């Protein structure tokens, strides 16, 4: 009876299922996009190859959100610490033209000493003030060719080389150029430290803490594990708001759908009551139909999510959208829970209908 009822009004069923699918897609995509960005950023930060990262006091681990620079002279003091092999200062700027990217202002020599150097697909290292290096993913997605002019941060750069991705950013320019452009003379956003041996990280961290007591000093081993929404203030709230909006969509559509269903089926409810159906039986029918609609919506939503991801990645190849089984499960619970909540009033209304009045309903 449940499936027959659901199929009885195909258009209404389709719209309800579509709304739940949109709800599920919204939840998974929003979470997948934020966690994908974090994961990608963390992976690239780890990819620099440093052992320790030093940032200004109270700086976020999401470097694209931290603008506060430090005196570059700190690099010299850090270099003198025991067990420190190399220190690479980096100035970071956030580029929002033609997508969202961070740009590393680097000193090629020190950056090479820490990271082991770029793997060049094409071209050469940064030499001139207007040179820029792009990684292969960026070059492919933006169709950037060696030697062309690239407009970044309101400045025209010359593409000097295409490098293998995974070394902190997708775009690299000389640090003095970026300092000049951003008015941050002799400043750096982060110092990457390479130890002489990786098992001495704890000792170096202690040394740096002593030297720079209030600074943020983070070992980069297992850095990805730190990249959760809870470590970025406001991100959790943003995700919760988006989930709330998604739940509201599902709730309202299911409420409206089941409410109109109940009104339309008033006489049928009277018939069921005349046959001796209890209030619980009628509530179960309404709720079962809701669960069926929600499950169809979740299935559709998962399909729609993968479709959206494919479209997004095709349009923005640098974008990472993480679709995890955990969040698919949570989206299912959210969709079904919101749906049941939306159907609860119509179900209650149906169960309390007077059988005589219901039977005479036209």
């Amino acid at each position, binding site marked *: 009876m449940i499936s027959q009822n659901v199929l009885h009004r195909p258009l209404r069923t389709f719209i309800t299922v579509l709304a739940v699918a949109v709800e599920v897609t919204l939840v998974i995509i929003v979470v997948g996009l934020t966690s994908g960005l974090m994961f990608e950023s963390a992976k690239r930060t780890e990819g620099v190859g440093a052992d320790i990262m030093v940032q200004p006091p109270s700086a976020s681990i999401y470097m694209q959100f931290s603008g506060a620079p430090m005196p570059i002279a700190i690099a010299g003091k850090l270099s003198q610490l025991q067990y420190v092999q190399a220190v690479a200062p980096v100035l970071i700027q956030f580029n929002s033209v033609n997508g969202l990217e961070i740009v590393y202002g680097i000193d090629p020599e020190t950056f090479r000493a820490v990271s082991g150097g770029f793997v060049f697909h094409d071209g050469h290292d940064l030499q001139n003030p207007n040179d820029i290096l792009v990684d292969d993913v960026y070059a492919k997605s933006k169709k950037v060719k060696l030697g062309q002019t690239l407009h970044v941060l309101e400045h025209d750069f010359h593409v000097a080389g295409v490098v293998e991705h995974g070394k902190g950013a997708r775009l690299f320019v000389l640090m003095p150029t970026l300092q000049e452009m951003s008015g941050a003379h002799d400043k750096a956003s982060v110092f990457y430290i390479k130890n002489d041996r990786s098992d001495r990280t704890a000792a170096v961290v202690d040394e740096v803490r002593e030297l720079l007591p209030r600074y943020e000093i983070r070992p980069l081993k297992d850095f990805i594990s730190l990249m959760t929404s809870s470590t970025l203030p406001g991100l959790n709230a943003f995700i919760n708001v988006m989930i709330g909006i998604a739940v509201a969509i599902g709730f309202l559509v299911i409420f409206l759908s089941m409410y109109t269903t109940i009104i339309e089926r008033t006489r049928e409810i009277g018939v069921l009551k005349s*046959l001796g159906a209890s209030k619980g039986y009628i509530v179960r029918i309404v709720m079962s139909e809701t669960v069926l609609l929600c499950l169809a919506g979740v299935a559709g939503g998962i399909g729609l999510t993968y479709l959206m991801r494919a479209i997004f990645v095709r349009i923005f190849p640098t974008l990472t959208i993480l679709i995890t089984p955990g969040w698919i499960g949570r989206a299912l619970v959210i969709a079904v829970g919101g749906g049941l909540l939306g159907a609860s009033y119509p179900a209650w209304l149906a169960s309390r209908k007077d059988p005589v009045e219901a039977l005479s309903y036209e």
Partner: protein
Amino acid sequence: MNPLQMDASHAVESRLESNHTNHSRLSHGGQRLEPILKTENVWKIYRTGKVDVPALRGVDVEIMPGEFVSIMGPSGCGKSTMLHVMGGLAQATRGKVLLDGNDLTTMTDAARTVLRRHKVGFVFQRFNLLPTLDAYHNIALAQHIRADGFDPHRFEVVANLLGISGRLKHKPSEMSGGEQQRVAIARAIVSEPKIVLADEPTGNLDTKSSEAVLNLLASLNKDLGQTIVMITHNPEAAAYGHRVLHMRDGLVVDGATVH
């Protein structure tokens, strides 16, 4: 005796046996049975705005097991209200309604629902089949609600008896009025109710279909011993009953008790 008739005889015997078990007051010698349904001074008052409108004004009726009783009366005289009160769909405002020994007027809504599920079968003028289900599932629904398991044997007997075995896969919209009403009757009796309450079962049917449905009800009463109370406007239809109750202005004016 064919298998169907054997089933019918068996059903009558088991019903009588059941009555005997449930009602120790039955007397074997005098053939005096307790009424399966009895109303005592039943009132039903509807409130419309600030005005009380009495639909039933002290109805006293006795229906004996195995009886086929017709109820006649002008529109608005309270026939349908009486049927609803008898079947526990509506609660009487005053008085007593005893269904198979259970006083409906003192029962909760939930208890009346359970009693209705097990002891009453309704047949309506507009058939009231669920449009999304085929005939098979419309009939099986009654057994499903009763929740004591689907009885395929009983189902088959009823479907054969009502001549709808070949129409079970059809939805109501694919059946004639007469066929729909036969499905509705099957749904009413498939759970072996103590009493079938039919509210103008031929009101939406042509003469031929009406006659077929009335013959069917008469046959259910005769062969299965099914107690039936039927509301009708048609004197010819009423004549199918053993007894005709006449109602006027919320009162039974004639035929209230068995003579």
